[in-house]
């Protein structure tokens, strides 16, 4: 079952769940790869350090990758347990206990970029009566837009549970003023397929190309329907067995024709080689 259906994020990411993010090498590896790709999509100026916001920073695994790339970052998360793990690990960025659905309260245009790894699908949860997904998403994207420098990018890797959810998230972002769209890496693979919402604040830019999607991009021809020849349905002919042969001979005899007498060889089976 998807974690989003089990409990709200502040409860789901408790101490046991948080400890997985420092001990489980598989989780660490996956988080690392996703962050590397998100940073690649952010397309920050080469060799320069930037100020990056990490939404849902958790235990700071994504932050570590940002630090390795030489960026200064600020992370926020709703789970206290995850932040405690991050502060124990002495990550380089600043941490903040904050609910992304309540919107940010940063000054205008301070961040060069923003990343969020496996986070924004959580905003679609209505755990409480007061949680309205569309309102939370709108507030999130609007305040994020304010906090970002014009021309900056925000990249969110997420796991949509349905196409409606994908549509809801994308349209909320567009309404907040972002341009951009979805980049789907390895769209033909069930396992390696990853969704990245790639948003541009202010200036429209070319959407980066997805990984592993070459075949679908290169294909220049268009399928035209209705031009195939319709195959005739093959009607299975009735097997002419021994009975049929005997009956036919009888009929011909009654017509007075010259018919060979029935014997044990009449309509006998031939060997397969025939």
């Amino acid at each position, binding site marked *: 079952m998807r974690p989003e259906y089990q409990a709200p994020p502040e409860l789901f990411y408790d101490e046991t769940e948080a400890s997985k993010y420092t001990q489980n090498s598989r989780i660490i590896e996956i988080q690392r790869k996703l962050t590397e790709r998100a940073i690649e999509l952010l397309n920050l100026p080469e060799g*320069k*350090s*930037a*100020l990056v916001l990490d939404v849902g920073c958790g235990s700071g695994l994504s932050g570590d990758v940002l630090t390795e790339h*030489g960026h*200064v970052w*600020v992370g*926020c998360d*709703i789970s206290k347990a995850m*932040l*405690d793990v991050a*502060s124990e690990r002495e990550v*380089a960025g*600043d*941490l*903040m*206990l*904050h*609910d992304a659905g*309540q*919107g*940010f*309260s*940063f*000054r205008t*245009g*301070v961040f060069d970029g923003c990343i969020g790894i496996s986070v924004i699908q959580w905003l679609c949860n209505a755990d*409480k009566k*007061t949680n309205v997904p569309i309102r939370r998403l709108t*507030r999130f994207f609007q305040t994020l837009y304010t906090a970002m420098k014009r021309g900056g990018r925000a990249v969110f890797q997420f796991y949509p549970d349905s196409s409606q959810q994908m549509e809801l998230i994308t349209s909320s972002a567009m309404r907040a003023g972002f341009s951009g769209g979805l980049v789907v890496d390895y769209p033909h693979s069930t396992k390696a397929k990853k969704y990245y919402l790639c948003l541009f604040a202010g200036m429209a830019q070319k959407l980066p190309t997805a990984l592993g999607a070459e075949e679908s991009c290169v294909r220049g021809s268009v399928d035209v329907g209705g031009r195939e020849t319709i195959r005739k349905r093959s009607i299975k002919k009735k097997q002419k067995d021994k009975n049929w042969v005997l009956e036919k001979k009888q009929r011909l005899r009654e017509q007075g024709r010259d018919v060979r007498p029935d014997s044990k060889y009449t309509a006998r089976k031939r060997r397969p080689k025939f």
Partner: protein
Amino acid sequence: MRLLTHNMLASPVKGANNAFPLKLVCEKKEVMEADFDAEMVKHLLSRVEYDALRATVESIGEGPLPVWDDGLKENEDFLRQMHHILLEIHVIEGELECPASGRKFKISDGIPNMLINEEEV
């Protein structure tokens, strides 16, 4: 929480109209050394509200910082001082206070709690 982050935060309280800066009450602070990179500090300076930073720095008993002057951006000593102020001083225990509504946000273990109630959004 470092002073860099404090300088970027406005009040999240509804009706406070993004009041800035939040009043910082510092009960415990620590200095953690970080590598100095002049280009990075220059870049961060372009994002900082210098006057607000100056007031905050004085209120927690650091500094004093010089009055802003465009020539300072090339001054190595000043950049080192800014590096220390923005990236090395960590507020471990303390409080942030919204200047408009008086709402307080606790900082514990270096992590400010910026959660607000649903009515305040």
